[in-house]
């Protein structure tokens, strides 16, 4: 009947307590293993904004895959990442980071620009 006892967070040093701890550890490991592919399935690309320029100005990403774009705005002023081709629009405040998910994209070139400084802030995503 011992095995039917419920696991509590108390310090049960006996066989039952050990079993509970094992189950709990196994659960945590399973969660970590299970979530690892979820975290890893979207490739991350970093884009920086500095002096109203995008760096790098060209980013090559895999086609037909959703990717996570981390945009770091190193300028003190805000900028808006905008692209008609990518259907994306997002404000990144000065000295801050932002996340933009893009794709899946068919192979091709997708220009983007900074709406607040379009004369200098230009770039493109190349899906291949």
């Amino acid at each position: 009947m011992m095995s039917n006892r419920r696991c509590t967070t108390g310090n049960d040093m006996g066989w039952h307590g050990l079993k509970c701890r094992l189950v709990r550890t196994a659960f945590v490991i399973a969660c970590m293993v299970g979530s690892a592919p979820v975290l890893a399935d979207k490739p991350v690309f970093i884009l920086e904004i500095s002096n109203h320029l995008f760096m790098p100005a060209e980013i090559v990403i895999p086609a037909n895959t959703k990717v996570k774009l981390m945009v770091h705005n190193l300028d003190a002023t805000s900028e808006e990442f905008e692209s008609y081709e990518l259907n994306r629009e997002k404000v990144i405040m000065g000295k801050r980071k932002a996340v933009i998910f893009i794709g899946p994209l068919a192979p091709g070139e997708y220009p983007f620009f900074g709406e607040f400084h379009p004369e200098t802030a230009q770039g493109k995503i190349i899906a291949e």
Partner: protein
Amino acid sequence: MLLTSVIVVLREVLESALLISVLVALSGTLGISRRWVMWALGLGLAGAVGFSLGINTISDWFDGVGMEVVSAFMQGIIYLLLLAFALLVLWNTHSTRTGSLLIRMIMVLIVALAVAREGVEVLIYMYAHTESLPHFIHALTGAVIGAAIGISVGVLLYYLLSYPAIGKSPTTGLVLLAFIGAGLLSQAVLLLIQADWVPSHLPLWDTTDWLSESSVTGQLLYVLVGYEATPTAIQVAFYFGGLIVLLAIAALTVVFRSRSAEEVSG
């Protein structure tokens, strides 16, 4: 620089101006005082200021996609309020005029939410040009011109909709609201795709070669009917679903009006 700020501000102002002018014109049709619009604008501008002050905090919500989620949520609410508004208008044409306070409250909320959402974009844009005074003056001049054009278009639409032949029935206004509402719904879905809350797929079609979204016509159609050159299937489904529901209500107002006219003549 000047032209950029004209276009940026015009686009934001136009989106709210169209919604406001249709609703104000419909107030005239329904015999409701137009004073509610002042409350709505005040509330909306206050909301935009509050929103922009909290922008850094809001942006960080939900692992950095807070802005998308909050904006999508606001647009979803605007659609639902438009739906409630259309149903109340239908009810008004069907039976005796009731619920004018409720209609006014709904219109205040719709306009306040729309102004807050578009206003925050204008405020952030202006804030981005505060690094030097000449920069700011350029941006401000462009913003004033853009806002003036947007408001003029709104006023023009208002007078067009108030023209006796159109203004007698709420149908035209409701049809316009159906397109605006469907566009908002499709934008909300797009924001949730950008935030990775809704799965994204390859676009259903690509009409860029036919009409680019960056062209003047493309941008105008984007504001008017929510035009997208490369929409995904989920966006298309929400757009047409939202459109059909509101268009059906607009069509019913015609049926109810002709029926009540028959009753009066009979």
